């Protein structure tokens, strides 16, 4: 017999898509049965009460979670999101329901041994409910009580060699695509760079000292599987500056229909036979490709590396050999002043340990933002407020036409005094000698 009647929530057990309601119920059942006699450290009925709260929200159309309280682990200002229920008498099992963010490994690979240890810890000291994964990328432990926070942190660090992620006005847990581990399009080792920068900036990650949140994301190529260009204050996107490698035999294979276009991605549509002219050459945004004597030709100098031709013919076309990354800055969601896409700051940079060139750009950006950024002002908003030129000055990067989609529409240039011969100090009396009032 369920602790709370939840007829509305129960309806979401139906339908084909994996039901989160079943997940909560599954954990509820496991906690009640508790076959291994785990000494559950938070209420056994935490999952039942969570279902009860959710049913109440389904009934009255509003949330029942209070503003977060300031809870955390000693010495860290992030990694824990305090959460309290606004109906603790009705749902005592979730009166405290704090979240921990656990810093995920680059590329989200796991061994079952490690995952089981996480599960054992979270069953023992928390609700047993997780997010795999949170929106920023962390493993999310969903719901525990205040007195368990230090215990969980102690066990994570001592037994699992594992730290928390970021929250609040700090460096948020960096996230990466799976990169070179299983992708032929990765232009640099995104996983290693993500890891190394996470380690380099542990202090910034755990101890909020920034005006607001700051996100790094690492995409191995312009396809952008972790959405760095839209979601991170600094996006590190792989690219190359030499020629696309062509296997003409494989091109012929695609043209002849022996190879499946787009890696087989369109298999269930009725799209007719593959047409390289229509599907690749005509769709090239820079029109830098053509067929000549049955061979595919690319004017690589004009290519902007959008990935389309490579995506369509992965066996025939490969990314270049002179690889590196571009850095784009200032993406954010709409709150407050509207959504922003990241803007190109560094067109190309090689990626080699110890990544001093990358770190130098980061330090320049942070020095500027920490000096000039207002409370709760993201980097992108500061860029808008003070201008892209200030970002260039802060990072010592020379202006380049690649920095703009097009030049400015107005002549309202903020000339600097030292750019104008003779400076700005002038003598009005001298002027009046030649110009009557």
């Amino acid at each position, binding site marked *: 017999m369920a602790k709370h009647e939840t007829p*509305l929530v*129960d309806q979401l*057990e139906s*339908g084909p*898509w994996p*039901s989160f*309601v079943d*997940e*909560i119920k*599954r954990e509820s059942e496991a906690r009640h049965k508790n076959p291994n006699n785990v*000494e*559950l*450290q938070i209420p056994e009925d935490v999952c039942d009460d969570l279902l009860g*709260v*959710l049913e109440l929200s*389904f009934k009255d*159309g*509003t*949330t*029942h*979670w209070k*503003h977060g309280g300031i809870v955390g682990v000693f*010495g860290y200002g992030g990694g824990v999101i305090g*959460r309290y229920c606004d109906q603790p008498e009705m749902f005592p099992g979730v009166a405290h329901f704090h979240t921990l963010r656990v810093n995920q490994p*680059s590329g989200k*690979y*796991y*061994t*079952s041994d490690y995952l089981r240890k996480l*599960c054992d810890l979270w069953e023992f000291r928390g609700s047993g409910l*997780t*997010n795999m994964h949170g*929106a920023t*990328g962390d493993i999310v432990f969903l*719901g525990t009580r205040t007195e368990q926070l*230090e215990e969980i942190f*102690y066990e994570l660090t001592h037994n699992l060699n594992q730290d928390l992620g970021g929250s609040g006005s700090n460096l948020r847990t960096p996230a990466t*695509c*799976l990169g*070179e581990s*299983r*992708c*032929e399009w990765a232009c640099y080792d995104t996983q290693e760079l993500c*890891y190394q920068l996470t380690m380099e900036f*542990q202090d910034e990650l755990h101890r909020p000292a920034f005006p607001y949140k700051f996100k790094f994301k690492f995409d191995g190529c312009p396809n952008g599987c972790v959405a760095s260009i*839209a979601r991170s204050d600094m996006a590190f996107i792989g690219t190359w500056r030499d020629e696309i490698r062509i296997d003409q035999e494989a091109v012929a294979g695609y043209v002849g229909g022996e190879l499946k276009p*787009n*890696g*087989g991605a369109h*298999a269930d549509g009725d*799209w007719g036979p593959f047409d390289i002219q229509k599907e690749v050459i005509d769709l090239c945004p820079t029109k830098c490709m053509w067929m000549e004597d049955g061979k595919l030709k690319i004017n690589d100098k004009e290519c902007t590396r*959008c*990935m389309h031709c490579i995506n369509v013919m992965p066996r025939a076309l490969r990314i270049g050999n002179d690889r590196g990354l571009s850095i784009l800055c200032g993406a*954010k*969601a*709409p*709150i*407050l002043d509207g959504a922003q*896409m990241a803007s190109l700051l560094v067109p190309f940079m090689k990626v080699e340990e110890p990544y001093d060139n990358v770190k130098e750009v980061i330090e320049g950006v942070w020095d500027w933002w920490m000096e000039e950024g207002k409370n*709760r002002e993201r980097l992108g908003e500061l860029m808008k407020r003070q201008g892209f030129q200030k970002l260039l000055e802060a990072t010592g990067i020379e202006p380049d036409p690649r920095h703009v989609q097009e030049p400015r529409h107005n002549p309202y240039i903020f000339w600097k005094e030292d750019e104008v011969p003779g400076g700005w100090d002038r003598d009005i009396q001298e002027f009046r000698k030649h110009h009557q009032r």
Partner: protein
Amino acid sequence: MAFISSGYNPDKPMEDRITDIGPRHFTDFLPPVIKNNMGKWLWHEILEPGLLVHKAESGDEVYTVRAGTPRLMSVETIREICEIADKYCDGYVRFTTRNNVEFLLDSQDKATELKKYLNGVKHPGGSYKFPVGGTGAGLTNIVHTQGWIHCHTPATDASGTVKVVMDELFEEFQQMRLPAQLRISMACCLNMCGAVHCSDIAILGYHRKPPMIDDEFIDDLCELPLAVAACPTGAIRPKKKTVKSEKDGSEKEVKSVEIKRERCMFCGNCYTMCPSLPLADQEGDGLVIMAGGKISNRISEPKFSKVVVAFVPNEPPRWPTLAKTMRQIVEAYAKDAKKYERVGDWADRIGWERFFEKCDLEFTHHLIDDFRDPAYYTWRQTTNFKF
């Protein structure tokens, strides 16, 4: 349940403390075939929905079976995933950015067998536990936020709306018949923990009533200047008010704020700064649907999603209006877009007047931007339009 210490000593928090150790290094968790072929992959192919092969320069092949998850997962289910990983994949498993789980195998036969197995496992309520799919020109899993499960600012539920939309569009997850990949994202308020602003279709929780003011308590709970400064439209001003005490009915003067309601754009930023300004409301809250965004640089530049439906009411548990509207957009796109065209590319080609016609969506004044400078750039400044 007796309290069991981990070894942590609250009287001496720094004793044996380990901090700043970061995440585990990813090479602790890579299957041998991945470790051996890092950076040496040649090509990949989607053999069938949810089943990929990657070929390395060494000649090695790795087969991947991808399955959806509800993101909110019990440790019981994670343990079940571990059992599957042990049985089929020598104990290795990974998750994708979009909340899918991936099993990596060394042969196509094993992968096909695993796919069959995964498609056969169901929850007691009848839903699939690990439906295989989410590849190629189809719908993959919806990335989303916490909603009523765990958040203090949502205007809707996240897990619930996602479940409803994935139920409605389920077959698109398990096939690849669309013109291009379809990325749907969900955020339960404008804070957009899920940053849904560049998705093919985005579902966004939104408030429509200005905040209430908890006059008696606001000065105790909030920094009033921060609450005032939080408002992007300058609608909040400090104001002294006389209130009747909740406890004893006595009148007293308090420092509070007043709100110019007609200036409120319902972003909820004031509530983020000050818990005494709640916005949530059963009738006021609901969903915005946005479309035409993308992140990839492929063919065309990354784009923001545009608001195409100003408001869909909250209709738990199954949000029928949301499900129906999502279906309408996806069907129109599937029918009309050309191969490789993302939703936004399609809309750009046919024109937004056609988009509304083909999707059978009403165009209302709410959809014309009037928020600051960028608004101007979205108005039509040409005589090129369609009848």
